[in-house]
């Protein structure tokens, strides 16, 4: 099951550039929370702070509190442990090109120090591929075909399977459909609905219709600040802040 994420007074910097200002919000367990905003508003920085990916950039740092369930990920826990619980799917699918589809999913386990027996590994990979709605398309060829030979949409679902294989509690998605055609996008969105049963999802998207379709909650970022956070239907029909309204109605951005 997923766990909630509680963010309090989160600030992030790249060197001297103050990229996030006092962000506080709660992403409910087993719900999808969408983060929207114009380019450079800090939305990707924000979700990268949720699994301590932000700090891998030289001179980047963050302060404040991010609790995944009851655990403050910036206090007394390792980044590796955090990323085990909080998986991430990136904008461009990034399967390991020299590995087969099967090995790509298994690699997620191996990289996290999980070494199951052969039969158990087969079961875990199948479960992850089924969970990512890719099983039927690759079950006959997954041990022969390389991950890179799949279509873009299949590659993204493979990356989701790789993330799911380690059974995280939260899945972060950073514009997961921006490189995909509408059919593949539809499959990923359908998948998000299924994934919510097991995981908490936070998705960054430039596609506002996508946010409206998949997320129960939406946060609007502007210039590093969280301007509005509310139920998605409220944000898209009757936002409280004029800046949110101007952005979602295309009056700026």
């Amino acid at each position, binding site marked *: 099951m997923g766990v909630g994420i509680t963010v309090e007074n989160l600030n992030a910097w790249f060197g001297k550039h103050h990229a996030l200002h006092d962000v506080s919000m709660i992403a409910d367990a087993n719900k999808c929370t969408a983060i929207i905003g114009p380019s450079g508003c800090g939305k990707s920085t924000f979700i990268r702070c949720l699994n301590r990916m932000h700090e891998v950039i030289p001179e980047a740092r963050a302060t404040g509190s991010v609790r995944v369930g009851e655990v403050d990920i910036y206090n007394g826990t390792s980044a590796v442990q955090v990323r085990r619980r909080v998986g991430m799917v990136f904008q461009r699918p990034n399967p390991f090109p020299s590995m087969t589809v099967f090995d790509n999913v298994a690699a997620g386990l191996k990289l996290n120090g999980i070494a199951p027996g052969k039969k158990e590994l087969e079961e875990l990979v199948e479960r992850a591929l089924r969970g990512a709605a890719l099983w039927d398309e690759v079950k006959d060829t997954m041990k022969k075909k390389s991950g890179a030979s799949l279509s873009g949409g299949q590659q993204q679902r493979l990356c989701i399977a790789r993330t799911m294989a380690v059974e995280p509690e939260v899945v972060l998605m950073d514009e997961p459909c921006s490189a995909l055609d509408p059919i593949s996008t539809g499959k990923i969105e359908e998948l998000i609905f299924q994934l919510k049963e097991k995981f908490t999802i936070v998705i960054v998207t430039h596609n506002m*219709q996508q946010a*409206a379709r998949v997320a129960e909650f939406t946060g609007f970022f502007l210039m590093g600040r969280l301007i509005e956070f509310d139920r998605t239907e409220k944000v898209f*029909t*009757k*936002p409280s802040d004029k800046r*949110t309204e101007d952005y979602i*109605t*295309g009056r*700026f951005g």
Partner: protein
Amino acid sequence: MRTKFHQGLEDLRDRLLRMGGLAEQAVDRAFEAYRDRDLAKCHSVLEGESKINELERGIDEAAFDLIAMQQPTAVDLRFILAVVKINSDLERVGDQSVNIVERVMDMIDLPFVDLPVDIPRMASATSAMVRRALESFIEGKAELAQAVLEMDNVVDRMRDEAFINLVRKMNETPSVTQQALDALLIARNLERVADHATNIAEDVIFWVKGADVRHNVGDPSTDAETQT
């Protein structure tokens, strides 16, 4: 900026205002036809109906295209939904005007009778409601629309009074039943026009405030002010 989209919204607004102008004119002419027992004015209302119907179809089509092609949200989505509903109400105002002149044409064929009903006063109140509802749309002001809602009870009372007095007249003087019945139906048509003006005002409040105040539910003053 989504220039094409915003031009589409402006175009929709202009079309609805043209529609509003025709509907308002139809009610006023229908009353003048009653007041003056003027057959030419009756025909003018009947002929104007097809233009209103044509505009209604065009507005619905333009709104449908904007929703399908531009995926509007927030205030823009509320605006388009409000326009579609106001469009329908204005078309019904046109229909009620036609109903009135049909009764007037019937009355013109009958001897004039002095009836215990103040149609001019009722028409004046109804016409003011339509005009103010359209002004609230032009200005995008919920407080103007709110004032229209408060006028509806006055017209309802006039309709009730007309009903009581005209039924009494029919009982007392059966020979004028046909004329009294025509006047009663005209009073009822005017009251229906006032109801459509009320609907328009409610839709303006929905557009501007995002509040659904239909059926006396919802207080627009509690919602965030948003305007285009």
